[in-house]
């Protein structure tokens, strides 16, 4: 479903790469958690996956298509929730969702059904008639989440999706991730909340200084870990302290 082959990103030719030689494969129906400290390269990687940034080297394949060669096919396949959703502020919530549905070519009945379903799930029904600029940060986030699901994507990419969400919405999002995964959709998300990653993800990848320091199921990582590292948090801190080689 999603494959990154030797992906490197340099913002400046002489600078240290933001992402270096990243290789990763995520299968259909899998929930993959992408973890790393601030500035590790998570958002850069996600932006390359979504076509917002171009990799300096390497290829990114989505549903067997290269994002650079077949951008439209790839973009039709995924739904994306950015870390800070910049949504057209002068549109109302419903206008925004209709706009997204038009761009993805979603039919009237499908969009109606999905908008109603997700708006109810995220408690947005009452506010869809208001302009986006009147929304709080959390509401904008919820609107972006609903918008990313409107075309029923086969790959769901979320960058720090829990940020700004209230506990109810956060719970609804986790449930939806599980449901999407059960329906065969691949879920790829970055997070700082290690407990969420530990409970929710089939596999996790830990990125440090632009390089993949560890990848696997939480149990696999635990089995590779040194004695006393019993949680994902322990493993993460261990890697940050220079024990990364043990996990690759």
């Amino acid at each position: 479903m999603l494959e990154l082959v030797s992906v490197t990103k340099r913002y400046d030719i002489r600078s240290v790469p933001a992402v270096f030689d990243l290789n990763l494969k995520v299968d259909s129906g899998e929930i993959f958690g992408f973890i790393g400290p601030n500035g590790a390269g998570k958002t850069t990687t996600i932006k390359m996956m979504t076509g917002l940034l171009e990799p300096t080297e390497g290829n990114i394949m989505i549903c067997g298509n290269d994002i650079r060669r077949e951008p439209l096919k790839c973009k039709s396949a995924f739904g994306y929730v950015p870390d800070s959703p910049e949504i057209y502020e002068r549109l109302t919530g419903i206008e925004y969702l209709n706009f997204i549905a038009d761009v993805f070519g979603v039919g009237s009945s499908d969009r109606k059904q999905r908008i109603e379903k997700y708006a109810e799930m995220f408690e947005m029904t009452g506010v869809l008639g208001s302009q986006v600029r009147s929304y709080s940060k959390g509401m904008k986030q919820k609107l972006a989440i609903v918008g990313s699901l409107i075309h029923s994507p086969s790959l769901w990419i979320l960058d720090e999706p829990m940020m700004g969400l209230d506990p109810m919405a956060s719970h609804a999002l986790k449930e939806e991730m599980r449901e999407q995964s059960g329906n065969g959709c691949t879920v790829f998300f970055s997070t700082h909340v290690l407990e969420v990653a530990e409970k929710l993800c089939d596999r996790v990848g830990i990125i440090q200084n632009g390089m993949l320091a560890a990848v696997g199921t939480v149990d696999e990582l635990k089995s590779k870990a040194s004695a006393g590292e019993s949680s994902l948090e322990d493993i993460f801190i261990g890697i940050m302290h220079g024990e990364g080689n043990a996990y690759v």
Partner: protein
Amino acid sequence: MLTCKFSVLLKFKLKYKLNISRRLAAPAGSFRAAGALLLTALLIAAALLLCIFVPYVILLIHLAGTYTEREYFSLLLTFANAAVFILSLLSAYSLFSSGREREFLIPLPIKKRYIFASEYVTYYFGAVMSSLLFTVPGAAVYAAGMAEKGAPVLILKAVLGCIIFPALPSAAAFVMISVVFAASARFRHRETAAVILGAAVLICAVLLRVNIGSFNADGGPAVRISESLSRILFNSYFMLRAIMIRSLRAWLYMLYFTLSSAAVCAAVYFYGGAVYDRILGKMKSAVSAREKTDKDYRQRSPARAFCIKEFKTVLRSPAFALNCCIGVILAPVLAVTASRSGLASDIPGIIMCLVIMSANMTASTSISREGRSFGMCVYMPVRSADHIKGRAAAAFVFNALSGALFIFPYEILIKLNFLYIIYEFLTVIAASLTFACFGLLIDLKKPKLIWDRETEAVKQNFNAVLGMIVSIMISLVIVIPFFVGMAGHVSKTFMYLCSFAEAAAAAAVGVMLLRNKACSREGNSIDGNS
């Protein structure tokens, strides 16, 4: 300590307004980029000189030769008063319609009145600039023709006077716009009300300006009204005397002038700040109003979806609506006033119409208006051709609407042959498409995506100015047959047909270039401009 804080704030505001730091930083380290910037600046200066300054100076020379010194300066000051007032209306409107940066300034340990003061100073600075632009060339033209030695002193007095001169018109504009926003705050749809009332005030101001006399009027009433106004408005009264009196007494008038202007500025500073805060507070609360959900789930094509989004975005934002659709707002007013002013016999309607259409900046700010949301166009599966088509269609509609709103009332009022009206309308349609295509091409090249206030995307956007100049240049090419027709014996039908053919050819070139651009951008990332 506090004064220091105020100067820091003021420096920040002026820098922010003029965008100096970013403009200087852009070409750093690249001689090629700096050269390109310099070349563009020179081209723009040349275009401005050719399109606006040269005709203005020619008009001034004509007036200086026709009227007495008193009449000439009365006319000049009336014109400057009206120009500063109208431009200040737009600036005051921007000041009230954007208040986002206050959100991070208010929690800082700065006195609230300093925030307003710094905003007022930048607002006043803009008014001084327009005052200098309209008045100093007038004084220079007059001084050049003076036999006596007082020319440099006259210029000095004009320059000094121009710094004080805008106090009255800018204060009047501020009061008027604060009334507009205070009234809008009473409506449920406050921002829509502000757009409509703001447009109405602008229309009234332009009507007033046209009716109190223009430079094109043949002496008589225009001069009489200007002379009366120069006796009523204190800025015209003192400046007229300061300029005309050749003795030391002139400086006494200059002193009165300075003191009275300072009093007006102080009044605006002390009372305006409180009014400004209260109105902004009321306007902000409008945002939280919940509205009924529109249950429209119809499917549309991506291009149509983008076109509808453009309409909604432009019309719902006061800053966008007033700056992007200024042609649509003013076209019918100018049509009626121009048809009465006697211009009809001298200038064909299509020339005025194209100039009005050039003022629309819907196309040349289309991408910039997206701001940070533009990323969505990159990660969504939409072909560049589709979103560009949607944007071009919206810009075309605004342009064509302003053209039609001018051409039909104007030409019907001056009783032009119906066939010629149709020819002109066809030319307007072709020119609308041309302006839309070239405007978009300009904005696609380097859109201004990083902004915090909506006004920055339109008023402080270089692309908007460039788009306007390019449109005026294209207009000049389109109306060449009329200039040829004025000079020689060419059939009127031939003139209209040639003009239409030129506009159609320009539209074809614009569409072709835009299509090529759309194809070359397919799947582009936003490296470098985010």
